[in-house]
C-alpha cells in the first residue's frame, strides 16, 4: 500500500527565514575561505524538452563554487510564463575539501504551442559573469498521455496506464507508466492501494514512484503522480494487460478548493471520500524474435556494449585467471547471462558471479559485471580465445554480435596440468563449460536419519550439566576452605578433634604395651588440647588449676569437673607411681573418652 500526501509533493516554501540566510552566508564565507580562488561554474537543465499545453517544465540553474552578487532573474520569453523561482543551497565538506551548490528552479509554462528558445541566463559571481547555455523547449497542443475520458475534468481522480510501444519483441523489457491524476481540489490521499499488474505472459519489475507534476486536463488542473515499472514478455501474441484497480481515500476541501471561502479561509474542513478507479485494459502485440540468431545467442534483448579483461596473464598451468566481463547498455540487465564459449574448452571454467550496477531506478540502464575464474589445463595454451556476446536489438530489429579479442597468455608448466579432473572428465559432449553444473557424486556415503538439532535433544543438555556440576562442587569446596581459613576457632576445633582421635588410638597402644609414662603423658596432652580449645586458651597453659579458675566460674557440669580432676590427678600420680596393669590403663581410656566427649559437648 502506498500513502501519498500532497503537502510533501507539490508545495514549495517561498519564505527565506533570517537564520537560514545567516547560516547560508556563514557557510558561503567558510567556503570562500576554504576554496580560495576556485572558479565558480553555472549549469542549466530542463527536466524535459517537450511539454503539453497546460503543463510546466522546470528549468534548473546550478551554481557551484560561488555566491552570486544577485539572484538570477527568470528568462523572459514571449508566451512562456515563468512562475515563482525556488532556491536551495547545499554545502558539503568532504576530506577537507569544501563545496557549495546553489540551485535555482524556474517553472516555465508555455501559453501557446511551439518551440521556445530560452536565452542564456547570466549570473555575476565576484565580478565574474557566468552564463548558462541557451536551451529549447517545445510545447505541443495535444497531451499524449492525459486521459481522454469524457468529462475527465469533472472527476476527482483519474488513472491511466501508458504502455509506450504497441509492438514489442519477446524478452524485450520496456518501461510502463501508471499515471494517477488528482484534481486540484484534492488536498491529500490516504490508504492508497493498487492491485498488482496482472497480465498473462508478462513479468513485471519493481514499481517506483516518479516526481509529480502539474498538468491540465480539459479545464481543470490536476496533479499527476506517475508510477513506473518494467514489463518483459515471456510469450508471443496479442497479450492483454488487465485493468488495475486503485483504491484510496480522498481528502477534498469542503469548499471545493476555492480558497476564498470566508467561513473556511485555511481549508481546515475537508471531506473524506473513498474512491476506486480502474485503468482500461491494454493489449500489447508481442513479436517473436526473427530467424537467424547467431550461434551464441542466449536470449538477450536490448542494446549493449561489451568489454573484457583477464589477469594474471602469466601463470602456471592449473593457476586461476580471473576474467571480468562488462555488458553495459539498455535492456533487462538482471536477465543477462554469459553465453557458453566452446572455444574455451582448454580451460576449466567456474560459474561466473555477477552484479548489476543500474543507473536508473527501473534497472533497465546500467552495467552488468561478470567475474569468472578460468584455469588453463596445460602449458600449450597461448591465449584466452575471443569472447563473443550476441543480442537482439529491437530498435534496429536485427541481431548484433559483440566480440572481444583473444587475450595473450603465458602458461608455464605446473603440477595441475597433469592432475586428473573429474569435472572435465564427466562433462558431456557439446556441453558448455561456463554454464555446466558440477557433476553428480558417484559415491553415496553414509546416510543419516533426519534428526533434530543438537540443541533440541535432551541428552545434549544433560551432558552440558556435567561441567557445571563439577565446577559447582569445586566452588563449594573452596568456599568451605575459605570459611575455615577465616575462622581460627573452627580450625582449632577440627585440629583438636583430629588430635583427640589420634591420641585415643595412641592411648590404646600404650595401654596394650603397658607404657604407663607415655600413656599418662598423652592423656595430659589430650586434656590440655581439648580444654585449651574449649576455653580459647593456649594448650600449654592448661593445668589442674584451670578447673577451679575457669570451669567452675563458668558453671561447667559437676560430672565434667570431677572427671577431669580425677584424670589430672591420675596423671600427676603416675609420675610417682606408674600403673602397670593393662586392664587398669584400658579402664582409663574409657574414662578419658567420656571426659573428652563431655568437654567437647560443653558450651564454654
Amino acid at each position, binding site marked *: 500500500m502506498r500513502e501519498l500526501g500532497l503537502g510533501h509533493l507539490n508545495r514549495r516554501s517561498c519564505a527565506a527565514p533570517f537564520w537560514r540566510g545567516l547560516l547560508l552566508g556563514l557557510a558561503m564565507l567558510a567556503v570562500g575561505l576554504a576554496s580560495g580562488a576556485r572558479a565558480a561554474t553555472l549549469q542549466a537543465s530542463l527536466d524535459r524538452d517537450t511539454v503539453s499545453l497546460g503543463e510546466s517544465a522546470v528549468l534548473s540553474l546550478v551554481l557551484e563554487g560561488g555566491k552570486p552578487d544577485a539572484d538570477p532573474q527568470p528568462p523572459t520569453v514571449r508566451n512562456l510564463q515563468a512562475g515563482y523561482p525556488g532556491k536551495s543551497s547545499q554545502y558539503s565538506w568532504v576530506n577537507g575539501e569544501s563545496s557549495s551548490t546553489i540551485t535555482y528552479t524556474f517553472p516555465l509554462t508555455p501559453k501557446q504551442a511551439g518551440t521556445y528558445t530560452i536565452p542564456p541566463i547570466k549570473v555575476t559571481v565576484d565580478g565574474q559573469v557566468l552564463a548558462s547555455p541557451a536551451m529549447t523547449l517545445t510545447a505541443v497542443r495535444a497531451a499524449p498521455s492525459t486521459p481522454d475520458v469524457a468529462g475527465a475534468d469533472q472527476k476527482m481522480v483519474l488513472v491511466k496506464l501508458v504502455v509506450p510501444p504497441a509492438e514489442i519483441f519477446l524478452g524485450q523489457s520496456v518501461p510502463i507508466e501508471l499515471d494517477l491524476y488528482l484534481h486540484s481540489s484534492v488536498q491529500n490521499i490516504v490508504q492508497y492501494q493498487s*492491485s*498488482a499488474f496482472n497480465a498473462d505472459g508478462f513479468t513485471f519489475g519493481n514499481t517506483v514512484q516518479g516526481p509529480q507534476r502539474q498538468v491540465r486536463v480539459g479545464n481543470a488542473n490536476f496533479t499527476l503522480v506517475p508510477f513506473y515499472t518494467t514489463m518483459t514478455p515471456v510469450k508471443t501474441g496479442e497479450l492483454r494487460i488487465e485493468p488495475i484497480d486503485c483504491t484510496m481515500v480522498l481528502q477534498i476541501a469542503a469548499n471545493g478548493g476555492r480558497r476564498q471561502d470566508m467561513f473556511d479561509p485555511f481549508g481546515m474542513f475537508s471531506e473524506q471520500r473513498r474512491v476506486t478507479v480502474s485503468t482500461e485494459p491494454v493489449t500489447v502485440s508481442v513479436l517473436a524474435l526473427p530467424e537467424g540468431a547467431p550461434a551464441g545467442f542466449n536470449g538477450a534483448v536490448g542494446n549493449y556494449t561489451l568489454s573484457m579483461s583477464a589477469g594474471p596473464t602469466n601463470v602456471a598451468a592449473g593457476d586461476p585467471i580471473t576474467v571480468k566481463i562488462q555488458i553495459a547498455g539498455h535492456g533487462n540487465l538482471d536477465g543477462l547471462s554469459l553465453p557458453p564459449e566452446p572455444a574455451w574448452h582448454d580451460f576449466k571454467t567456474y*560459474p561466473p558471479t555477477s552484479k548489476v550496477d543500474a543507473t536508473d531506478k527501473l534497472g533497465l540502464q546500467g552495467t552488468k559485471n561478470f567475474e569468472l575464474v578460468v584455469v588453463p589445463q596445460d602449458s600449450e595454451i597461448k591465449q584466452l580465445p575471443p569472447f563473443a556476446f550476441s543480442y537482439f536489438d529491437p530498435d534496429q530489429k536485427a541481431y548484433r554480435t559483440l566480440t572481444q579479442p583473444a587475450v595473450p597468455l603465458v602458461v608455464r608448466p605446473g603440477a595441475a596440468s597433469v592432475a586428473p579432473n573429474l569435472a572435465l572428465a564427466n562433462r558431456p559432449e557439446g556441453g558448455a563449460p561456463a*554454464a555446466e553444473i558440477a557433476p*553428480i*557424486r*558417484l559415491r*553415496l556415503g553414509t*546416510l543419516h536419519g533426519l534428526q533434530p538439532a543438537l540443541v533440541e535433544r535432551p541428552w545434549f543438555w544433560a551432558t552440558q550439566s556435567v561441567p557445571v556440576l563439577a565446577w559447582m562442587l569445586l*566452588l563449594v569446596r573452596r568456599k568451605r576452605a575459605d570459611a575455615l581459613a577465616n575462622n581460627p576457632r573452627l580450625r582449632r576445633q577440627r585440629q583438636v578433634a583430629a588430635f583427640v582421635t589420634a591420641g585415643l588410638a595412641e592411648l590404646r597402644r600404650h595401654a596394650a604395651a603397658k607404657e604407663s609414662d607415655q600413656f599418662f603423658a598423652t592423656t595430659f596432652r589430650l586434656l590440655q588440647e581439648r580444654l585449651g580449645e574449649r576455653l580459647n586458651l593456649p594448650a600449654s597453659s592448661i593445668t589442674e588449676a584451670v578447673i577451679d579458675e575457669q570451669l567452675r566460674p563458668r558453671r561447667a557440669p559437676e560430672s565434667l569437673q570431677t572427671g577431669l580432676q580425677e584424670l589430672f590427678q591420675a596423671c600427676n600420680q603416675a609420675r610417682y607411681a606408674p600403673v602397670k596393669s593393662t586392664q587398669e590403663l584400658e579402664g582409663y581410656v574409657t574414662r578419658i573418652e567420656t571426659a573428652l566427649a563431655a568437654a567437647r559437648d560443653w558450651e564454654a
Partner: protein
Amino acid sequence: MKSSRHIWGLVLAALVGLGVHAARAEDPAAAFAAANQLYEQGHYTNAAAAYAQLAATGRVNRNLYFNLGNAWFKCGQWGRAIAAYRRAEQLAPRDSDLEANLQLARKRVGNNASVAPSRVQRWLGGLTLNEWTVLTMIAGWLWLGVLAAKQWRPAWRASLRNAGFGLGLATGLLAVLTLLLWRDAQMDRVAVVTVPEIKVQTGPLEESTLAFSVPDGVELRVLDRREDWLQVQDAHRRIGWLKREGVQVL
C-alpha cells in the same frame, strides 16, 4: 525410426527404474548407483524420481540431495533443483560445487523476486547449526574447566584470569550466535516455487484476488501458515498467500 528409438529409450528407462526399485529395497548404495546410471544415460526425470524415492526413506545425506538437485536441474525444474541444493546446503554449507550449482540454478531462474539471506545469515550459514553448537560446547567446557581449575588451585587464579575472561566472552558470543541461527532455522522458513508459475493471492481463500505471481524457482520467505495456505513475502516485500502444493518449504 526416431519414434522407435524413443520407445526403446523408455523401455530401457523402465527396466533401469525397476532395477532401482529392487535395489532400493536391499541396498541404498545400489539404488544410488542405479539412479546415477539413469542420470548418465540422460534419463534425468527417472533419475530424479529414483533419487527422490531414496530420499523419501528418511535417510539422507548431502550427496543424495546434490545428485537430486542435478537431476532436476537437467530437467529444467529450477525450483525443485534449488530446493534439493538448499537441503544439501543445510547439511554441507561449505561445499563449493554445491554452491556453484545452486548459484547456476538461481541464475537460470533469472528473477529478482527471490529473498536473499542477509549478510549475517550468510556468515552464520558457513557452519551448520550442529557445528555452531559443538563450537559453543567446546568453548563452554573449556571455560568451565578454567573456572574449576581456579577453584581447585586458588594459586592459579591470577594466571588464569585472562583465559577465563576470554573463554567466557567467547562462550557467550558463540551461544548468542548459535541461538540466532537456531531461531533463524525455526522462524525464517523459505518456500521454493516448484511449478511453472504460482499465483499469490491477497488472502488464504480461493475467492481472494490476485496480488502477484511468481515463476518457478523463486525463493519466498514464509510468514504464516493456515491449513493448506502459506503467507509469503518476496524480495520486493510484497506479501500474499499461496497454496502449499506449489512450493517446497525448507
